[in-house]
């Protein structure tokens, strides 16, 4: 099993690694040209923000598009249970910067924007200190932009709209040339540029009914069960796992526990590691009420620009809440199925698609809970 690579080095609780420590531990940043794109492709690295898009392919496309793209290091981390991006920025800011500067070098960009969630103050402070430690030819490329604490602000299209036009909402206008890459992805790039091969690890956030919720760097071959064990085990028997966060899927715990985390392997099974959230649902909690709470949240996070998303998600959340609060009824169960299939793919961004995939996973994983739910007061999602 691969040892931690991204979070190797000094104790994580002792603050950010300095530039001097970073360079003495890993060596200077190799100046690789377009060959880096081949290395990234060969490494199989996929984006760690959620969509798991192949990084080599993305860079190749950006290079072909020409122009001088803006490089956006996406550290918005609006996913409620995810903590990995801010931990990485707080503890190993120079790995993130290395990846961003490599992208700028390979793609001939003169602009690097650090797009950091407005509430992630420690991460922002660490990134700004790290920028100040870099030589002027790198430092001068960088700008920091505060991402509003909205779920859609982390969408790559919204990120580009934010840093180029100041509006952190998705748009259907032709986007400015840009490469948006999650901060963890950039940290992997920094290591692949040095070693020539994949790191073999991913950052995950263990959440829910585990003894020690928090961020872990684990081998991509590790199973969900081993992540749970590393997080101190379960606090009570687990019913299901929310794999990949709110745009991920519910999976029965017995099935999920044996799954390996490799993002590509999960994708092949129709699942996603998403942003790396592994949220355990204790068997004492009601999956219908949990799902209703999350749907309510996602409906509220619509940017309200597109009718099918704004009205559709709200109607889905309402129907889900009615089942949760007043008990199962055939009319609402039918609506959930129909509206979910109608809303998917009909937004300017992927927000409705993600919300609907999440809901459909709930209907698939907890069919009898939905069909036989008796009225009880919805409990707020933890």
């Amino acid at each position, binding site marked *: 099993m691969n040892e931690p690579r991204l979070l190797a080095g000094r104790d994580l609780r002792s603050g950010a690694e300095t530039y001097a420590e970073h360079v003495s531990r890993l060596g200077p940043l190799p100046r690789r040209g377009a060959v880096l794109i081949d290395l990234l492709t060969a490494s199989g690295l996929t984006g760690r923000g959620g969509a798991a898009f192949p990084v080599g392919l993305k860079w190749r496309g950006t290079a072909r598009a020409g122009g001088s793209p803006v490089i956006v290091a996406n550290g918005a981390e609006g996913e409620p249970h995810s903590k990995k991006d801010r931990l990485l920025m707080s503890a190993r800011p120079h790995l993130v910067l290395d990846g961003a500067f490599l992208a700028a070098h390979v793609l001939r960009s003169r602009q690097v924007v650090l797009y950091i969630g407005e509430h992630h103050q420690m991460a922002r402070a660490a990134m700004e200190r790290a920028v100040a430690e870099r030589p002027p030819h790198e430092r001068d490329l960088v700008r920091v932009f505060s991402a509003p604490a909205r779920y859609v602000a982390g969408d790559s299209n919204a990120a580009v709209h934010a840093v180029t036009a100041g509006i952190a909402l*998705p*748009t*259907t206008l032709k986007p400015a040339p840009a490469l948006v890459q999650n901060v963890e992805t950039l940290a992997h790039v920094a290591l692949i540029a040095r070693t020539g091969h994949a790191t073999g690890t991913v950052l995950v956030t263990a959440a829910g009914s585990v003894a020690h919720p928090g961020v872990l760097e684990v081998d991509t071959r590790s199973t969900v069960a081993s992540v749970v064990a590393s997080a101190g085990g379960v606090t009570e028997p687990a019913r299901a796992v929310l794999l990949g966060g709110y745009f991920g899927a519910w999976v029965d715990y017995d099935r999920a526990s044996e799954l390996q985390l490799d993002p590509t392997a999960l994708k092949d099974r129709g699942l996603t590691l998403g942003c790396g959230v592994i949220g355990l649902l204790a068997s004492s909690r009601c999956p219908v009420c949990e799902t209703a709470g999350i749907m309510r949240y996602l409906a509220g996070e619509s940017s309200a*620009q*597109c*009718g*099918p*998303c704004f*009205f*559709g998600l709200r*109607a889905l959340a309402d129907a889900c809440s009615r089942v949760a609060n007043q008990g199962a009824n055939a009319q609402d169960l039918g609506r959930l199925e129909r*509206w979910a299939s*109608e*809303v998917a793919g*009909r*937004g*300017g961004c992927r927000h409705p698609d993600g919300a609907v995939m999440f809901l459909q996973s709930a209907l698939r994983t907890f069919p009898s809970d939905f069909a036989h739910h008796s009225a009880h007061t919805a409990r707020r999602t933890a």
Partner: protein
Amino acid sequence: MTRAYELRIDRIRCDGRGLCAQLLPELIRLDDWGYPIIAPGPVPEHLRPLAERAVEDCPVLAIALRRMETRKAAGR
């Protein structure tokens, strides 16, 4: 080879006026909130004039006819 066209909607522009569904019910229906749902696939040749009309008459210019991208990539 004939060129295939499909209807595309700019979801941010679309206000749900519903004109398109009235002009072209063969391919466009409205969801429960009045927003268009487009039948997938290319616009049949005989419906092209009606599709063009729907594009031109949309009050917020939210609908367009686009050449369909030919997908040569394997395994997609």
